[in-house]
């Protein structure tokens, strides 16, 4: 009996370890019908020509090539531009996004878009795009997507597209994005996934209606809180001894898995682990609650194999890059070119970007 147990136990551990990477996910049952309903309501507001413009085949290149952090004038997005929609159409488009995202996630998206409006009114930022920069005119190069040439910012410059037809049973994707924003929500039956997605911000801090807005303020502050919650020995493991000046797995890096570095979450205490999960939730929680809960359960199950890596200052308000990398998640936070007011981030699942593992089933 003892021998049998001693054989079965390690085998059980082996099997359990293998299955931990794709933990049983609580189904996102509540979200899909609402998202599909909102998407169809939006489609109902469109003309035939507009419907043709917003729709793409699920297996078209639009799925992987249709998103970017770049502004109009540099990157040509497909689908329907918010600025070209009537008020009811625009409201229906945003309602579709609202159905796919959580309340907090939707608010984050709005703050990123409003930040781009601020950027437009400021005439561009210290780093990144400048309106009127060569995009069509003087350099002899045709603008790609520029409306009249040059780079265009603002809340009108966001696009919505459906990759595949909205459905509660067959796979499709809601794609919403513009400068510093790419939201890719793949719906496969009751499952909703939001990888890859790119929430970014420039300016990272602005004042709107008398209120200071920091679209990625939690991502910044929670990162600094965790690195400073580590003891010196833990910091030695987490802090990389080299500079990281950009995203490693930004747009165009689908399918690449880099060797993880930094500190394993298994070496953190329970409070620190919870702080790490809270940081991850800033990205995961953009998605509707049911989808986000399923993803968080998966990340939590894989926490012992998840790394936290930090590069740069550990003083909040100074430049730092960080990365969370586990078997089914990669999150990067990267200020651009030494500019604290210009932040890029990426959220990926190396096993399930675009819902790939769900679509295969």
């Amino acid at each position, binding site marked *: 009996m003892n*021998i049998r147990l001693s*054989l079965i136990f390690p085998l059980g551990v*082996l099997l359990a370890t293998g299955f931990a990477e794709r933990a049983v996910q609580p189904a996102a049952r509540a979200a899909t019908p609402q998202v599909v309903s909102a998407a169809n309501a939006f489609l109902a507001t469109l003309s035939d020509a507009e419907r043709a413009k917003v729709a793409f085949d699920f297996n078209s*290149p639009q799925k*992987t*090539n*249709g*998103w*970017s*952090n*770049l*502004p109009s004038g*540099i*990157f*040509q997005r497909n689908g329907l531009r918010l600025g070209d929609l009537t008020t009811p159409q625009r409201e229906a488009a945003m309602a579709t996004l609202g159905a796919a995202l959580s309340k907090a996630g939707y608010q984050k998206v709005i703050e990123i878009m409003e930040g781009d409006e601020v950027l437009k009114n400021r005439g561009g930022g210290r*780093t*990144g*795009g400048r309106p009127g*920069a*060569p*995009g069509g005119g003087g*350099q*002899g*190069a*045709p603008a*790609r997507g520029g409306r009249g040439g040059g780079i265009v910012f603002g809340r009108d410059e966001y696009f919505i597209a459906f990759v595949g037809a909205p459905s509660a049973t067959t796979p499709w994707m809601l794609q919403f994005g513009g400068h510093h924003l790419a939201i890719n929500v793949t719906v496969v039956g009751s499952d909703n996934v939001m990888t890859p997605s790119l929430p970014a911000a420039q300016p990272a801090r602005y004042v709107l209606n008398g209120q200071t807005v920091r679209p990625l303020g939690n991502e910044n502050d929670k990162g600094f809180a965790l690195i400073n919650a580590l003891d010196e020995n833990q910091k030695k493991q987490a802090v990389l*001894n*080299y*500079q*990281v*000046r*950009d*995203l*490693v797995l*930004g*747009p*165009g*890096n689908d399918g*690449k*898995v*880099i*060797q993880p*570095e930094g500190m394993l979450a298994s070496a953190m205490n329970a409070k620190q682990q919870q702080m790490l999960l809270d940081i991850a939730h800033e990205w995961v929680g953009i998605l509707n609650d049911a989808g986000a809960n399923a993803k968080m359960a998966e990340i939590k199950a894989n926490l012992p194999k998840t790394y936290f890596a930090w590069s740069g200052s550990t003083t909040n308000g100074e430049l730092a890059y960080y990365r969370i990398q586990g078997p089914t998640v990669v999150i990067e936070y990267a200020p*651009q*070119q030494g500019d604290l007011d210009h932040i*890029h981030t*990426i959220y990926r699942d190396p096993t399930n970007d675009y819902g790939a593992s769900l679509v295969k089933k």
Partner: protein
Amino acid sequence: MTTARVLSKNSFSLLAPGGSLLILVLLPGTTSAHRLDEYLQATRVDIARDRVNIDVDLTPGVSIARQVAAWIDVNANGEISPAESLAYATQVLESVSVSVDGSAVPLYLVAAEAPPIADMSLGVGTMRVRASANISSTRSGRHSVSIINTHHPETSVYLANALVPTDKVIQIREQRRSEDQHSLTIEYAIGLPIWPRVAWLLTAVTLLVGMWWMRHRLDRLENAETPAV
């Protein structure tokens, strides 16, 4: 890098001595960043048992794009020809040194992809260079690969990362970099695959259990055959 990576009508390939060399001229590509005065050089290293594959993505920022374009578009006709792309990729590789287990190994060009100069002028055009080096020793144990990139360090920002090897026998043990990431040393190990080891272990355990069981049975038989005193 998210715009359509569709091969243009200008795409073609040619063969080079010692292997195939693919030169691609791409339709617009974009980068993850929108840089101004930095030359981003992102290197990814994929280690296999018999070779190391190196991808270098080079993206000049808006402010230095004209200068970088001049390095590549040597006839200044506003287009990067396949020959110019090849020549520049060769220049890049001349600035990249690779050593395996401490010995320098030659790097050969596998592919070069040049963006349109218009994209480069916007700070979003990425030149992609793919190269490989052969590894002669594939014995199990510890090994190292070192890469040093000295291509235009005056304006460059570097990223350098090992990819998780697709061959599960290879395990990355450590990555060491210079502070600016222009050099990267990867320590790795080649070991037996896990399943043969597990299978060997299970076989050994089964044999031991079998021997114990047979011994136990024999003891019981002997005891049963011994008449009670």
